[in-house]
């Protein structure tokens, strides 16, 4: 049994921006197709949580002992974002949680590090990106938001690593200084000129290390934010064209740091045992890895939840461009005549971590009644301090009643308020997200999703919301 990836998960947000909407609003053509858009209540931390929940959702996924999180768009600096992911996944305190934030190449490092750790103990790598840019620019148009997560373990791998290689080069192609909201890019032909040889060098070394020829490759993924260099490199590798992984630029867009992971997940969801997969990343140098699928793959595919292809197929592409700009802070809208939200208090949040992040109810040991939020006194039998925590984040529920709140503070009004009755007991009143207000009914089936409720005084307020059950709408 080989060590390596044993489970994976991806998350593509519900919303898509149709590039035609940009063109219509700005009066200049913005191309065809759509890009994924994180909702106003999502950030790279919540995108990462959702991908990781899917990776760990498979019953066979081992519990990670290390969590590595990487993103070029961290919600916090100076504070470990992986700690919030750790808490939202309900991982044990003894699990190490680390950020590797910065350039999109850090995502590769997180995955490779988890792969190395995975040979000794289960390790989870989570990579998320949220790409934005100035209105009307290529970054805004071609970027995308999403996340991928991989669980590595000492045995039971669905792919084995045949070889890998890297090349590095200091040059100015894409950059952003801390505090800036948008990236700068040098003239693209310069970058192409530098990238292609770097890519070829890493790829050639990896193929050599793997003891194969380019013609043996069944699935080729070439990723990178430099679209032109990626195309040129792909054409120069000598891999048969029908092995090229599908181009997602017209549906998903470029996921930046998460692009190679999501593309690999998509291949894993379609591949058969014994196939060779090459992944090549162009990011301030190049990284290449050659993998071969194992006999463990079909069982993992059968256990696996929502595929990349299924997520591409669902989505909702009628997001107004003005709403997108509002979510990205590029359009300053008149606020409601309501007080600003209060930042959550650190000690209160610390005391309620199991609830706020882990979505743990308390179940009465005496009578079984579930309480959300957890309480010490049982509503039903009044027993005191006879409770055990019970995580309900993965439990589905049904809408008991609902409202559309046009007064409550939100970056994207109206707020949908729902009362959710959970399967197996327990009720909670919360917000509903990723839903059409006109489609909510008594009886709508829902699942929970980890979101950023709002940010106040620089503090992100994370909590859970309901959303329509995947496949129910």
């Amino acid at each position, binding site marked *: 049994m080989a060590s390596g990836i044993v489970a994976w998960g991806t998350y593509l947000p519900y919303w898509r921006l149709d590039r035609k909407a940009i063109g219509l609003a700005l009066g200049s053509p913005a191309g065809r197709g759509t890009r994924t858009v994180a909702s106003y209540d999502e950030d790279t931390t919540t995108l990462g949580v959702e991908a990781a929940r899917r990776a760990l959702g498979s019953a066979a996924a081992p519990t990670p002992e290390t969590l590595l999180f990487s993103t070029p768009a961290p919600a916090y600096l100076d504070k470990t974002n992986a700690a919030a992911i750790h808490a939202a996944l309900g991982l044990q305190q003894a699990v190490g949680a680390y950020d590797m934030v910065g350039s999109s190449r850090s995502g590769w490092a997180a995955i490779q590090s988890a792969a190395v750790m995975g040979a000794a103990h289960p390790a989870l790598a989570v990579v998320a990106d949220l790409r934005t840019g100035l209105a009307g620019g290529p970054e805004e148009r071609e970027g995308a938001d999403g996340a991928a997560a991989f669980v590595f373990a000492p045995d039971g791998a669905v792919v084995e690593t045949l070889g890998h290689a890297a090349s590095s080069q200091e040059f100015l192609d894409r950059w952003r200084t801390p505090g800036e909201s948008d990236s700068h890019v040098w003239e693209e032909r310069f970058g192409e000129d530098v990238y292609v040889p770097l890519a070829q060098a890493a790829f050639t070394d990896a193929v050599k290390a793997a003891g194969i020829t380019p013609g043996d490759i069944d699935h080729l993924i070439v990723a990178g934010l430099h679209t032109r260099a990626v195309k040129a490199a792909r054409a120069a590798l000598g891999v048969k064209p029908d092995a090229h992984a599908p181009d997602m630029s017209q549906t998903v867009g470029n996921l930046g740091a998460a692009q190679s992971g999501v593309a690999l997940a998509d291949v894993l969801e379609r591949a058969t045992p014994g196939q060779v997969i090459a992944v090549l990343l162009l990011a301030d140098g190049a990284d290449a890895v050659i993998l071969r699928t194992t006999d463990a793959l079909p069982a993992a595919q059968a256990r696996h939840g929502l595929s990349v292809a299924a997520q591409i197929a669902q989505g909702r592409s009628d997001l107004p461009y003005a709403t997108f700009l509002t979510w990205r802070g590029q359009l300053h809208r008149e606020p409601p005549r309501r007080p600003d939200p209060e930042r959550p208090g650190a000690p209160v949040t610390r005391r309620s971590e199991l609830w706020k992040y882990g979505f743990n109810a308390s179940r009465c040991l005496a009578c079984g009644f579930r309480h959300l939020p957890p309480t010490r006194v049982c509503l039903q039998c009044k027993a005191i301090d006879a409770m055990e925590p019970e995580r309900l984040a993965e439990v589905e529920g049904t809408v008991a*009643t609902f409202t559309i709140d046009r007064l409550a*503070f939100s970056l994207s009004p109206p707020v949908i308020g729902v009362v959710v009755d959970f399967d197996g007991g327990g009720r909670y009143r919360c*917000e509903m997200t990723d839903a059409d207000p006109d489609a909510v009914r008594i009886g709508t089936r829902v699942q929970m999703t980890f979101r950023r409720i709002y940010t106040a005084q620089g503090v992100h307020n994370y909590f859970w919301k309901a959303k329509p059950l995947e496949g129910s709408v």
Partner: protein
Amino acid sequence: MASNGIRDRVAIIGMGCTPFGERWDKGVDDLLTDATKEAIASAGVALDDIDAFWLGTMASGVSGITLSKPLKLDYKPVSRLENFCATGSEAFRNACYAVASGAYDLAMAIGVEKLKDSGFSGLVGIRPVGDGTDPGLSSPAAFSFLAPAYAHKYGVDEDEMKDVLTRIAWKNHRNGAVNPRAQFRKEVSLETIKSSPLVAGQLGVFDCSGVSDGSAAAIICRVEDAHRYCDTPLYVKALSFVAGPAAGPIDPGYDYTTFPEVVRSAADAYSQAGITDPRSELAMAEVHDCFTPTELVLMEDLGFAERGTAWKEALAGTFDRDGELPVNPDGGLKSFGHPIGASGLRMLFECWLQLRQEAPPERQIASVTSAGRTLGLTHNLGGAPGECVSFVSVVGSELS
């Protein structure tokens, strides 16, 4: 364990109530002074005759000094209370108990709220530092949960439900239109109400009570002393107050078509007052119509209509000012306005006028003048469906 009540042991001998509304011209001190001035004049007592004070305000001041300072009270006990939207009633209840106990001869309960100075729309609550997990739903949203749940349970379709809610708002606006102290003194057409901009769920602007400034006060003494001050006192028949376990939002057994807290407090109050059939025994009721679906559900919780029938009764005009049981003849929270701490006492003020036949002829209810009924009910709640405090009082113009 029982609620024994203090039926016919204390009496209201004087009341005051400021006009409610956007009182840009009056501060908290002014409103308190105005209500007090009217109340003591009504009772024919001097301020210094009053032995103790209970001040209800949600957020317009803290401590008894909020009252003692503007009134320049000379070292008297002043308690400041808060109990959500039932704050004014809570001040009244505690003042009644203090007098009934014999601790004081004369007490005043006063409620005040100054909401309009904040510059915000709707209510602004005060919350302790939290963990950020409370769903930030507005008050209209929390109460709008009632509408689809009620409609779903009793097979009322969405359009009919809107008509019912509209009819309730229309009635209360019609009542307020002839009340000079009300915030909104204009009849509003059914069409205008129905097509008003949506605030939450099915609720439009006209389904919500008025955000308002105001103050109201009552002066209380023991029954045996009442006629020293007043020929026509109002006797306190029942006072019931309950705080629920906030079960609704966590108990799948709660269906959002009732306020269990109201059912309990009503049963307790009826038992204290000896009422068995509220619909036929009461001359009137002032209920907490913070939003139109609240009034609908209250008609059933207070026993004025059978379960599942209040929507038909509302459409039939049963609770109109000239109907079988007038509900909110003064316009209610809907059109009189809802300055939180003052509302419970404002409800009593309408009983004070109507049961003693001091309301102007154009709005004096016939259940008192013709049918000869002598009892009035006030109902005041605070919180949200499934997690609220509820107060019910019964007052009457005759001793039992």
